[in-house]
């Protein structure tokens, strides 16, 4: 068997008879036993990729194997070897937590008694024992995500797809989910995670791929990506927009990437934060430009996108998002 849990080659996917291109040739290799991150804004093609790899959707072209099985020709074998959970927390609201997990067990063709036993174990593992006999409609957002994840694990799949597992969750629930994912990976599970949050990818994923408009625009370990992006963002606030423009021009050589000027705020991506900041301050002071504020921060997803693509992450959301499914007004209860 291949060393990779997922191998995708040149996957493309178009919707609406080719009008909308969600994926434009994505290739991936996901190593076993670790978290692999698919990072990108809304509409970048992350979910489409997960839907193809989990056999929900067929690729327009390209091929992929999951746990060694072809996603198109051996879809059933793929389904038997994966679990899927995500931001929509697709649990059956009218069933109890226990019934939800058990149903997924039975549909995975696991014995009734084994399904029941596993359901109890998973409820306990995810802190849902007390809520296990309540219908899922009464669950909070965080509980629904945990239930969704528990159901995805009932067949003990070696590979788990997590599609934006923490989007819309409060910080505590997010932390809880992160530790659950870490525990799973320690136990040998491979996780393919999609996320919009750099912080999440950074914390969980060993290897990362950054998607934009259906194409991979960067890949590597999160450390490599950070180095590539410049470690720090130096953000200078000036007294006026005029000062901002002049100041940005004056110290533009502290970064090898163009500055992002927005009103009176100028962002530089710099390799050595404090040194660059001191340098910029000295030179601006010498030429008599007053600085109203200064901040050094870790690059955010916005900075990543700005650096890699020259456009902001939010702009990407204007591209039409996927097919009919989302227009059905599916509720993403958080």
């Amino acid at each position, binding site marked *: 068997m291949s060393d990779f849990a997922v191998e995708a080659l040149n996957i493309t996917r178009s919707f609406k008879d080719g009008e909308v291109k969600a994926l434009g040739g994505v290739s991936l290799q996901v190593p076993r036993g670790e978290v692999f991150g698919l990072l990108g804004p809304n509409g970048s093609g992350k979910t489409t990729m997960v839907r193809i790899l989990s056999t929900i959707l067929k690729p327009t072209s390209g091929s992929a194997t999951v746990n060694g099985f072809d996603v198109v020709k051996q879809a059933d*074998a793929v389904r038997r070897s994966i679990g899927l959970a995500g931001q929509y927390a697709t649990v059956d609201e*009218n069933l109890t937590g226990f019934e939800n997990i058990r149903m997924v067990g039975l549909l995975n063709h696991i014995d009734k008694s084994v399904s029941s036993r596993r359901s109890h174990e998973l409820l306990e593992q995810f802190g849902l024992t007390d809520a296990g006999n309540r219908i899922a409609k009464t669950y909070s957002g965080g509980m629904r995500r945990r239930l969704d994840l528990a159901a995805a694990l009932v067949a003990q799949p070696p590979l788990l797809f997590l599609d934006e597992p923490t989007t819309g969750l409060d910080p505590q629930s997010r932390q809880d989910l992160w530790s659950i994912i870490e525990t799973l990976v320690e136990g040998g599970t491979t996780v393919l995670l999609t996320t919009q949050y750099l912080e999440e990818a950074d914390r969980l994923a060993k290897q990362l791929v950054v998607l934009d408009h259906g194409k991979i625009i960067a890949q590597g370990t999160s450390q490599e990506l950070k180095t590539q992006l410049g470690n720090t963002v130096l953000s200078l606030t000036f007294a006026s927009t005029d000062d901002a423009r002049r100041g940005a021009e004056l110290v533009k050589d502290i970064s090898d990437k163009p500055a992002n000027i927005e009103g009176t705020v100028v962002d530089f991506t710099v390799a050595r934060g404090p040194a660059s900041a001191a340098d910029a301050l000295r030179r601006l002071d010498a030429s008599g430009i007053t600085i109203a504020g200064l901040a050094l921060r870790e690059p955010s997803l916005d900075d990543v996108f700005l650096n890699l693509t020259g456009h902001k992450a939010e702009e990407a959301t204007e591209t039409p998002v996927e097919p009919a499914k989302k227009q059905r007004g599916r509720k993403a209860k958080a």
Partner: protein
Amino acid sequence: MSVTTISKRSRLRWSISDTLTIAKRDLIALVRIPTTLVFAVIQPIMFVVLFRYVFGGAIKTPGNSYVNFLIPGILVQTTIFGAVGTAIGLAEDLQKGLIERFRALPMARMAVMGGRTVADLARNLMVIVVITIVGFLVGFRPTGSFVSYIQACLLMLLFAYCLSWGFAFIGLAAPNSEAAQAMTFPLIFPLTFASSIFVPVLSMPSWLQVFARNQPVSQAAEAVRGLMNGQPHGNSTWMTLIYAVIAIALLGPIATAKYKKVA
């Protein structure tokens, strides 16, 4: 993990087991959501009371007491209304993303629709029992044999089951469950009211009689009424069976194709 080749027999076994798992889930929902239970049970009881005591006195039904005319009709109407549940249920599952999630499971693909229609079949069976009891309470005394009563019930269940595949299509085509319900209404309304369910067709204007006499629901009502009351009912049993077979042969594949497309 090993991919064992799955034999046809175990494939069939799993298809049945998956279908029953989904059917059970749908029935649990039916019991837990009060509105659907009311829609399924209380509404037909209201129709019984309304027609038995309010309108019934003004309706002449030669050859039968009105209550003996009415109850078989209400039974047919109720099982047809039950098919609306198929549309609403599927639209809801689709809307909530559940059908998509099911597709990532190694379950039989048709179990979602199969389970839904089987659940609706079970619901119809329950409603038949309830309406029969209510019917007896309001004076329904069928003059046919017990065996032909059972035959009538089976005919109704078969007819409604075949119909529910047509409504499955509506459920899959509707943008949401509310729309699914609204879309079924213009279909259900003429079929159940321009029929021999509540009044004899002969009391209608002649232009309407042609439709009202021959449409599937009237044929089913005629057959069920004839069987339950032990009266001649022409070829209506055969016509009902033919309509049922046409419905499933025509609508089944359409619904299945739609399911494969949207899910």
